[in-house]
């Protein structure tokens, strides 16, 4: 790397008898390299994403017509339980852990994570959780929804042991997440490159830091709650059994004390990806770095105070409802601030329509719809009508598919050259982005109307009253458009792994340190760790190269870089 020669000289240590890099499939089983573990995470969680997607399509097929008999009520309940649990615990949360694993050490100028073996353990626990959960397919899958409300889940109401598979999934993936979060926190707190103070931390790393703190605070609560559930089911306790001195409401409080921060665990890293992608392709610094970083932390704090807004219809005191309505409103302020800052980042920039940027802007525009419907839902008298209907299904999918999934795809398109050394096809990427964007709109926009017309969620059939059948058919068509968009990205990835254009270390002329090293990065990441002088260290490095070689800085004058344009 040419630039490395011009950074401050650090005495090199010559090492003898270094073990050669391991190769072959066993090296993937024994690896403690954060990049390989990151790839394992990303590939594994993407497979679970496809499983969850197939479940979603089966759900939509069943609902395509009124009084449909494609699947039995039992199978339908299993499908939505598998879908929700898979997407949350086996896709979005660990996918963010995978991206963070690969990228955080590179972005902060570290050679690995703080605890490499713990890191490997986190991954293998996740895989074990996924396998335990999906093994239930051969017995009796769980069927009480991803929220597993007691006493439906704790009592005698569902035959079979599917709920236990769900409990072990929570234990294993929860432990995986907690260990991973501790690792990420320790890495970010201690292993930053010289000069990288908190004010120069890349915004993706800020969101991962917040993600880690939220996991450490929220995950132990659900781990405790499912342990109580396990005891109720098998060891004769009555924590959630009202007829024996327990409380059914206790489960809801414990679950949502975890469940609401979980939403921010899933969406904040996607916000971090938006904050990385937008300035690079606008060729302009992020607008209001401090405000965005602060908003991340404020959202996380407030996110711990709003859990009871999932329980507005339950018998809870009015003062609690008022408190969580207000805290839910307050959360909209820092979220709005982020959106305004992203728009201001595009403003008066020179926006290059690369696929990653299109996914990011598409994701923001879809997330805004979910954010606005969230404010309507926080007005609790209104929520009494909308809770547990398809309006809420639409809201949460705009947040999670529009925000998190589009963010993840923006991240895949942005960092794929770093992961593999090859570029993804822009044409296929744009087609995928367009189909996913249209698919999300067609699938979920109309679901607001299904809910307003009285369709509750989690029903395996519905009567053909009003326009319910038409609404549901539109939604089903949309889900297949969305599925086609995802498939095209898979084709793109497989194709580019073989025939993609070689990327080089820094194909986007980006701002952060992961672009300083070759693509894919060597095992030790950095031969020389550069000193960080601003929030955009790669810009400084390029400027230094320009000063010393007399070549113009191409990143700052896009018209000189025809290769970057389409």
């Amino acid at each position, binding site marked *: 790397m040419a630039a490395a020669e011009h950074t401050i000289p650090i005495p090199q240590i010559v090492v003898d008898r270094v073990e050669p890099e391991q190769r072959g499939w066993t090296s993937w089983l024994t690896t403690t390299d954060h990049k390989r573990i990151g790839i394992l995470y990303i590939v594994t969680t993407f497979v679970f994403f496809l499983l969850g997607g197939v479940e979603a399509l089966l759900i939509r097929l069943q609902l395509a017509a009124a009084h449909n008999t494609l699947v039995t009520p039992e199978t339908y309940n299993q499908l939505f339980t598998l879908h929700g649990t898979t997407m949350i615990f086996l896709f979005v949360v660990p996918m963010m852990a995978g991206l963070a694993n690969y990228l955080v050490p590179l972005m902060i100028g570290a050679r690995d994570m703080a605890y490499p073996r713990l890191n490997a353990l986190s991954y293998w626990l996740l895989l074990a959780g996924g396998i335990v959960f999906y093994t239930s397919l051969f017995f009796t899958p769980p069927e009480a929804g991803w929220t597993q409300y007691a006493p*439906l889940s704790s009592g005698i109401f569902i035959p079979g042991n599917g709920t236990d598979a769900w409990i072990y999934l929570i234990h294993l993936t929860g432990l995986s997440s907690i260990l991973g979060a501790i690792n990420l926190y320790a890495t970010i707190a201690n292993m930053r490159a010289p000069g990288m103070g908190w004010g120069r931390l890349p915004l993706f790393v800020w969101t991962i830091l917040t993600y880690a703190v939220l996991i450490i605070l929220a995950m132990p609560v659900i781990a405790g709650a499912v342990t109580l559930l396990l005891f109720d089911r098998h060891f004769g306790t009555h924590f959630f059994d009202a007829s024996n001195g327990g409380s059914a409401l206790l489960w809801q409080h414990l679950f949502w004390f975890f469940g609401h921060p979980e939403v921010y665990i899933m969406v904040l890293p996607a916000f971090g990806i938006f904050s990385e992608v937008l300035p690079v392709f606008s060729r302009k610094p992020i607008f209001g770095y401090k405000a965005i970083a602060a908003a991340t932390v404020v959202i996380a704090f407030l996110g711990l105070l709003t859990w009871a807004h999932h329980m507005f219809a*339950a*018998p809870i005191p009015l003062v609690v409802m008022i408190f969580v309505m207000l805290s839910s409103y307050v959360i909209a302020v820092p979220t709005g601030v982020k959106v305004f800052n992203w728009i*201001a980042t595009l*403003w008066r920039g020179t926006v290059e329509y690369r696929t990653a940027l299109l996914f990011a802007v598409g994701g923001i525009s879809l997330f805004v719809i979910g954010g606005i*419907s969230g404010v309507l839902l926080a007005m609790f*008298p209104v929520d009494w*009508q909308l809770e547990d209907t398809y309006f809420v299904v639409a809201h949460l999918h705009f947040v999670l598919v529009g925000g998190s999934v589009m963010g993840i795809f923006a991240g895949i398109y942005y960092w794929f050259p770093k992961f593999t050394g090859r570029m993804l096809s822009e044409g296929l990427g744009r087609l995928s982005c367009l189909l996913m964007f249209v698919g999300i709109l067609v699938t979920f926009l109309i679901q607001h109307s299904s809910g307003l017309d009285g369709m509750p969620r989690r029903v395996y059939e519905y009567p053909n009253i009003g326009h319910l059948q038409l609404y549901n058919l539109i939604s089903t068509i949309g889900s297949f458009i969305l599925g086609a968009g995802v498939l095209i990205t898979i084709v793109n990835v497989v194709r580019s792994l073989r025939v993609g254009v070689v990327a080089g270390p820094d194909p986007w002329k980006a701002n952060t340190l992961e672009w300083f090293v070759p693509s894919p990065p060597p095992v030790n990441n950095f031969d020389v760790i550069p000193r960080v002088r601003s929030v955009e260290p790669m810009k400084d490095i390029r400027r230094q190269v320009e000063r010393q070689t007399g070549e113009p800085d191409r990143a700052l004058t896009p*018209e000189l870089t025809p290769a970057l*344009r389409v």
Partner: protein
Amino acid sequence: MRRWLPLCLAILLAGGLVAAAPAALAHPFTPQSGGSPNADRINWLYRVGLYIAIVVFVGVEGALLYSLIRFRARRGRTPVMVRGNTRLEVGWTVGAAVILVALAALTFAELSSIRNPDNTGPGGYALASTGGGAQFASLEQRVPPNGRRLNIQVNGQQYIWRFTYPGAGPTGFGAPYSYEEMVVPTDTTITLDVVSQDVVHSWWVPELGGKVDAVPGLTNHTWFKIHRPGLYRGQCAELCGRHHAAMIATVRAVPPDQFAAWLAQRKADIAAAQQAAAAERAKLNSQTGAASVENP
């Protein structure tokens, strides 16, 4: 390739219209209402929220789309190196907060009229006052100001609702009840005590107001008041097992005199059925020689 965006936008717009066109046919943008005043007030509150939401939506998405198109990379254009603007950032933070304060104020203004029952009308079912006055911030059953209300207990069980009406005997037993269909008098304030005997259910008839969860071990409350006789339909709104979708809820509103007749008929039917059952039991007991063991 550079002309992709307008095409994409056109497709999106067309897709949006296709999605929205059938929606324009019915009442797809607002919750159902028209059965009871509280449902109408929720609908009003939702509408105000929706109008504000539409303004915010158009503003934000418009600004996003405008900056995406207006500032796309072109030959000779250079980006402006701005890192922030404190005044602007404080401005939009305060702006967002003001909108939310307005929404909160609206909610507070409408809250008590949604939560606390209206008075029973003069043409309503003849009821004795049970002590009036609204109890704010309380889990207790709220009573209309004039104290005249008909209280019905709603019991959820997999997968059917049971409705128990006033009229128990001195022992506390013998109250008339019905399954599946609740019959109520018009122009009368109906207050509901919602309970569950197995798992969590949720009582919801959209035209009669919001849903209330039926949680085992706890009693939840709501009310409605119907002017127009007719059938009002809803269904259980909280996953309660495999046949959750089949747990329907129906309310039939009839004029007060018809309700009185229905209730009397119900009582007579239940009494007759109990007498028949007692006779059957006595017959069985005499056959088995266990006449001394009499069920209550």
